């Protein structure tokens, strides 16, 4: 029986078609559960947030009012929005610079250390795996007026530098960025280290033959070779910083007086706490645009690199 119905017994278009049809169904069955979940709870909300940004809506009331671009014109005139945007960019810039600068330097040192490397790497990775909220509790305590950081400064005779780190509008943003770097530097080092280990040893030998000292070899061999992985670290830490919420929310909630307000915290306050869904969504769209532009810029630069 089965021989008769198999494709060998019935050559021609019909059986081929049925094979194709069966393979289509099987393929769909494998992909459908994931795709459905992704479409319903990731893709649809992304489209919906754009739709919301044209509405005046409290998020609860069935009545939603279409107000066109009003949320965006309001956004452009909103001083707090611009401050949140500028804070987000400053905070991201500090985080990227520290991650790349210290990341490259420490990874280059770590690459030369054989014994003890695993121990050092583990030390740097522990802050990466603990939650932002845990990091927030630890750093709030360190930054307290009578906390460890001020005590150390006084112990070193630098008491004039001590201050209420999270209560001072001048320093709160860099202080928070340092706490964030504590949770991100380990991963940057590990990534750059992986890039360093892929560098061709022969290039160093060639540089040594040319009489290059270690610093010249680093500049002429190492840096060009790890540029792609550094680009990855830049984009990874930048997007991680742009969408930062947990750490800031748990440490300052954007304060004092908005000096650590980020786009994500401002969106949360307007949208979720004050039930201004339309306006919150407009802030979210701004966030979405920044992340997408950053990613697009990154893939453009990468594709240019390859050609």
């Amino acid at each position, binding site marked *: 029986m089965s021989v008769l119905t198999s494709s060998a017994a019935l050559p021609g278009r019909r059986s081929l078609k049925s094979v194709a049809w069966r393979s289509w169904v099987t393929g769909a069955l494998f992909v459908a559960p994931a795709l459905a979940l992704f479409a319903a709870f990731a893709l649809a909300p992304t489209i919906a947030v754009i739709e919301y940004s044209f509405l005046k809506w409290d998020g609860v009331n069935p009545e939603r009012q279409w107000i066109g671009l009003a949320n965006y014109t309001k956004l452009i005139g909103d001083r707090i929005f611009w401050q949140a945007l500028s804070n987000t960019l400053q905070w991201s810039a500090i985080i990227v610079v520290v991650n790349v600068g210290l990341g490259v330097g420490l990874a280059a040192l770590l690459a030369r250390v054989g014994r003890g490397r695993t121990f*050092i790497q583990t030390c740097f990775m522990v802050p990466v795996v603990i939650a932002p909220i845990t990091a927030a509790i630890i750093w709030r305590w360190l930054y307290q007026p009578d906390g460890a950081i001020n005590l150390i400064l006084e112990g070193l005779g630098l008491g004039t530098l001590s201050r209420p780190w999270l209560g001072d509008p001048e320093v709160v943003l860099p202080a928070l960025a340092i706490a964030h770097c504590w949770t991100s530097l380990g991963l940057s080092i590990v990534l750059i280290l992986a890039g360093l280990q892929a560098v061709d040893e022969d290039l160093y030998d060639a540089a040594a033959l040319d009489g290059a000292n270690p610093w010249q070899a680093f500049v002429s061999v190492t840096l060009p070779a790890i540029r792609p992985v550094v680009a990855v670290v830049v984009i990874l830490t930048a997007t991680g910083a742009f969408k930062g919420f947990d750490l800031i929310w748990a440490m300052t909630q954007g304060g004092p007086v908005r000096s650590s307000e980020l786009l994500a915290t401002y969106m949360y306050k307007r949208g979720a706490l004050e039930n201004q869904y339309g306006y919150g969504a407009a802030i979210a769209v701004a966030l979405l645009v920044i992340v997408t532009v950053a990613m697009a810029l990154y893939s453009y630069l990468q594709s240019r690199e390859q050609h």
Partner: protein
Amino acid sequence: MALARSLAVPRAALMSLGVLMVAPTALTLFTALKPASEASTPWSIPSALTFDNFLRVWGEGGFSVYFWNSLVISAVDAVAMIVLASAAAYGLVFIRFPGKGIIRLAFLSGLMVPAAAIVLPLYSSMRRLDLVGTHLSVILADVALALPIFVFLFASYFVKIPGALHEAARTDGAEEWQIYWTIVLPISRPVIITTGLLEFLWSWNDLLLRLLLLPEEQTRTLAVGLLFFQGAQTRDITALSAGAVIMALPVVILFVLFQRHFVQGMTAGAVK
């Protein structure tokens, strides 16, 4: 000799930096073990070490409930992610059917969407489905948002499996689901472990989604529980430290045990 000396300096410097990186966590653990009345300075030596703070937050603080909630959500997240992402990647890599390009593109676009940008509509969908306050709502959102990363992680592993293996199984008359289950999954252990660990970690650590979707005390996870505990008990630093340690300890232990898998996964995920 010269080489040994030239390495000794960077090694010593890196070791001290490493210790400095761990110091805040270690001080927190130390504080959690102090009697509540002796927390004046971070490094003051306590008269005795005690588990009192842990018992206090675990019982009165409600952390036993939070811990259980976190564990359930993160474990279900990890298993669901392994099943869904591996199946989708299998379909995309091994089975020929039309529309694959579009599906790939859809997942690719999902790589860029930050959760923070879409929490408002996500919350309204969950409210319409009457799921706010349930663990299911968090699980659905977690898995949906991180799916693209893990689909690509599995797919990049599957494309390295020789196509001949799949062809041979097909000609032997095996069904696709049999090949997936008995041939492909067993040889994919490294990605399965990496996926499970990373998804567990991200789920365990997330705050924002849980803050919105789990408003009631009995359903809170550790992240939300800690946030509210911090708000209520800011002066009680030993109890707060104990809470932070309860949240950090499981993932730090997992990390130390499976460091290689974590690092590989994070590296692969980042480079993709």
